[in-house]
C-alpha cells in the first residue's frame, strides 16, 4: 500500500531530517510512528501525501510512484487520503461545518449528502452541537477535533494523523482513537504519529520508532 525505498530528506545541509528510510505499510494496517520531537515524524507524513519531495529515494503508494505523478494530478492521490495536520490548518473565517464540508465539496458531492456526512463526522468527534460556530470560538482541543472530522468525513483509504491527540484529555484521546480504529476496520490504512505511550500501548498494532531521522526499530504486536 505505502512503500518507501531508501528515502532521504534534507531541508538544510548538513542535517538530514530523514535518512535511508525503507518501510512497507500494508493495506489495512494501523501503524504508529513515534519518537522524540524533531525525529522526522511529520516529515515522513508530508512525504507520503507529497507536500514535500524526498531528496533521494522513491515512494510508492498503491503501486504508483508518487514522485512521478505530475502536479496537476496530485489531487487524485490526495482525494484518497484524510490528513490531520499537527497545526490543524483550519479556515478561521469559515464555520466548523464549512471547514469539514470542503473535503466533500471538492468531490462534487450533492449538498444534502454533504450535510448528512458532515453532521455524522462531527458527531463522531462529539462536536455536532458546535457546527455553526467559528473555529476561533472553540478551544484548542475542539479545533483539533474539527481537523479530525475533516480528515475522516470522506471515508479515506489512507488516514494520516500528526499528533491527533496532542491537545486532548486522555478520555477524549481514547475516543478519537476508537474513531480511527473504526475507520481502520472499514478497510482504511492508518498511520498515526504520536508520543503518547499510553495510546500506543492501548491501540498499537505496528510501531515504528524514529530517532534523529533514522528508523531504529519496528515492533509488531
Amino acid at each position: 500500500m505505502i512503500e518507501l525505498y531508501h528515502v532521504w530528506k534534507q531541508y538544510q545541509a548538513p542535517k538530514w531530517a530523514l535518512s535511508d528510510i525503507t518501510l512497507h505499510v500494508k493495506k489495512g494496517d494501523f501503524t504508529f510512528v513515534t519518537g522524540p520531537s524533531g525525529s522526522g515524524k511529520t516529515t515522513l507524513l508530508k512525504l507520503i501525501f507529497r507536500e514535500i519531495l524526498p531528496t533521494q529515494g522513491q515512494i510508492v503508494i498503491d503501486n504508483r510512484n508518487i514522485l512521478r505523478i505530475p502536479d496537476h494530478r496530485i489531487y487524485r492521490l490526495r482525494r484518497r487520503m484524510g490528513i490531520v495536520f499537527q497545526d490543524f490548518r483550519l479556515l478561521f473565517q469559515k464555520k466548523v461545518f464549512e471547514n469539514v464540508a470542503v473535503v466533500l465539496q471538492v468531490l462534487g458531492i450533492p449538498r444534502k449528502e454533504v450535510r448528512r456526512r458532515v453532521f455524522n463526522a462531527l458527531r463522531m468527534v462529539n462536536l455536532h452541537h458546535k457546527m455553526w460556530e467559528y473555529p476561533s470560538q472553540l478551544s484548542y482541543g475542539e479545533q483539533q477535533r474539527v481537523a479530525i472530522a475533516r480528515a475522516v468525513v470522506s471515508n479515506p483509504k489512507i488516514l494520516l494523523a500528526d499528533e491527533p491527540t496532542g491537545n486532548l484529555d486522555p478520555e477524549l484521546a481514547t475516543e478519537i482513537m476508537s474513531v480511527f480504529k473504526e475507520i481502520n476496520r472499514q478497510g482504511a490504512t492508518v498511520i498515526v504519529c504520536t508520543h503518547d505511550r499510553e495510546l500506543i500501548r492501548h491501540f498499537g498494532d505496528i510501531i515504528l520508532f524514529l530517532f534523529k531521522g533514522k528508523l531504529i526499530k519496528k515492533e509488531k504486536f
Partner: protein
Amino acid sequence: MLIIFFLEKDLPEEQRISVEKRLKESSLVNNVRYVSTEQALVRFKQNFPELQGVIENIEINPFPASFETNLAEENLSPETILRFIQVMKDMDGIEDAQFNRDWVERMESLSRLAQAIGLFLGGILALASFFIISNVIRLNVFARRDEIEILRLVGGTNLYIRVPFILEGVILGILGGAVSLALLFLLVKFFPLYLGASLGALNDIINFRYLSLTQISLLIAGSVIIGLLGSLSSLARFLRV
C-alpha cells in the same frame, strides 16, 4: 447637406421619374425638389441680372434640369455620402452631381483623426484595466492563500481552485464595461446641454450620439475578455498548483 444631381439633356419623362423615385426611396434623403431647365434659367436671370444679355444671345437654354436633394441626417459619415453619390451617378440619366466636396473631405479626415485618437486612448485604457484586474486578482489570491492551500491538500483540482478567481475577473470586467457605458450615456445626454450655444457652428458638425447596439455588445465582450485575460495572467503567475 445639399446635393444637386444634374440630369442628362432631353431626358425622357419616364427616366426622370425613375431617378426621382430612386432618390426618394433612399433612406439618406430627406426631400427632393425638381428644377426644370426653364426654372434654372429663371433662377439664373434673377440671381445674375447683369448677365441677362449673355443668356439672351444664346438661342438655346444651356441649363440642365436637376434634382436638389437634401440629406436626412447631419451626422452621416463622409464615406456613406460619397458612396451614395457614386451610386446615383452610375445611374442612367444622371450627368453629374454637385456637392460641397471640401466639406465632405474635411469631415472625413476629422473623423479619421477622431477614430485614431479614440483607438489610441481605448488601447491605453484597456491595458490599464487589464493590469488593474490582474492586480486585484493577485491580491485576492494572496488573501486566500490558506484556503487555496487547504483546497489543494484535500484534493481540489486546479480548475476547482481557479474558477472563482476567473469568474471574479470576468465579473469585474463586465462591471467596468457597464459603468463606462452608463457614464458615456450621461455624457452624451448632458454634455451638449452644458455646452449649449457656446458650441455654435460646431453643433452642426459634431453630433453627440450614443453607441449602437453592436458597439455596446463589442464593448461588453471586450471587457469580458480583458477580465478573463487579467485573472488568467495573475493565476498563471501566482497560483501554480
